[in-house]
């Protein structure tokens, strides 16, 4: 990523848009309960989680947009986060806007003592909605709640 200082803006071909502290802002939004992604001004695709340059057109010109929060659960698994000392479900989700994301899957009806049941959650046309939760270390995380 090219870091553009204000006094160097004349030097860049893109017109000198300043690079933002993306990670800081992403988590600031999450702390407010807002799940925000990037819309690329160059080609219009939506990127989540936000990153440095557009993977489609290479632009660095993005605007923050709220994500719809809707997605389809494609793959799921169960296991430990050893660093955080928990057993949890993980889902890989295709968001309505296109991006793929993995994260915590929330489903109170799942019996953790029967891990093999996760087999049936894969490619089963299950809808999920995103919500902001706190991980065991107190950091905001985007989780996916199963919709039934």
């Amino acid at each position: 990523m090219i870091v553009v200082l204000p006094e160097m803006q004349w030097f860049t071909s893109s017109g000198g848009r300043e690079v933002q502290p993306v990670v800081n802002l992403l988590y600031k939004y999450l702390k407010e309960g807002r799940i925000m992604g990037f819309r690329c001004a160059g080609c219009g695709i939506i990127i989540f989680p936000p990153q440095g340059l557009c993977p489609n057109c290479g632009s660095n010109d993005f605007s923050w947009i709220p994500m719809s929060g809707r997605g389809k659960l494609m793959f799921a698994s169960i296991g430990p986060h050893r660093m955080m000392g928990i057993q949890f479900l993980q889902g890989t989700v295709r968001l309505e806007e296109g991006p793929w994301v993995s994260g915590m899957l929330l489903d109170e009806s799942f019996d953790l003592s029967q891990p093999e049941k996760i087999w049936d959650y894969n490619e089963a046309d299950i809808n999920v909605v995103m919500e902001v939760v706190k991980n065991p270390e107190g950091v905001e995380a985007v989780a996916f709640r199963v919709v039934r």
Partner: protein
Amino acid sequence: MRRRLARPVDIIGVGLTKLGLVTETPEIKNMTSRELWTWAAYEAIQDAGITTKEIDALFVGNMVSELSEDQYHLGNILIQWTGMGNENGAWKSAVRLEGACASSSHAIRQGVFAIAAGVYDIVIAGGVEINNAKMGSKAPGEPRRMTNEERLRCIYCHYDQAWDLPQLSLQDMNLSQWIMAYMRHHDLDIKTLYDVLDARISSNCLNGQFNPKAYWNRPLGDAAVDAGFSNPRDFLRSPEHNPIAHWPLRLWDGPRRCDGAGAIILCASELSKQFQKKPIHYLGTGNAHGTTMSEKMYTHPMIIEASQQAYGMAGITPDDIDVVEVYDYLASEYLIPLEDLGYFGRGEVWKALIDGRTTFKGDKPVNISGGSGSGSAVGSIGSIQTYYLVKQLRGEAGANQIEPVPIVGLVYDCGAARDAVVHIVGR
């Protein structure tokens, strides 16, 4: 992009330490990265029939020396320990590269490129890793076992700290999705899945029991008997001895993380016969990145891309490959790469495992070293895999030598299941 080597390169020497734990294993007890590297490097130098005077530069891969030894800048330390000085009193060029479990594969690639570019004629490349022990300036040369938290940091520090780790988006969890997606795509049930997982362990153990340098080389049957089972299958299905980690993956479906070093002497092909009667040609390489997510999960673009780069450079097809070393950190990373690499057709590898085709006696040998269960010294994996293949291609592998002696071999190494590196070597 040409994706050709501008000058052909050969492997003329290989060296490997005993794999194990520097806190326990007698052969490497109380060693630091310096001694492990020296062992592998000296063995490779002798194997090549050269001296340090002929070597122009050093490329070393390493993943976690900051966490295990509080040590940056291994390049500077290891060029000194390898005694590689110039006539004018300076030491030669050296650098450490980091790419998670693919660190030493990147070191080998950079060594190859430096020779192909005409900058150097002979280089030493490889990797060294200590990832179970902690040492540093307060107790030099006195490693102690890492605490559980220290060990976990070695694993979790290669996750994206800004997203994957805090978001609980874990690679190991995605990897169990890989194998489920694979089995479901081929309409296979959970019972068959368990059989496939058992078969991979049987195949790896049957190969690895003849590997004297392995950290673990006990026959599977003996391990079962030790635990009070007459049948290895019952042993592997026992929740006590093989507990589930991420269903369906169990303890034995993962690696035995250990310490060790590997080294390779690379040489411009026009010079290699001066030193080595049986040079092995470095035919091709590829590298591509991705995440552990893909649209289909049973196939991953980074693996296909890296292998096509390597096949293109080598001017061969998957049909020409006689033997593969695949870095099966988890069992999923055995099945899926072997099909994405084209060594097996789609939907074939699970059956090949059950039919026993992947042992050194089979028609499609894989992981003659024993795979990651025989020892996974993470940042030195690629150089260790290359060591085993060079021995096979020279016909010097010993008790698990493939017959007839293979002509072309492929290494698939992958950093954090998202940094795919392929090396193709041949004689």
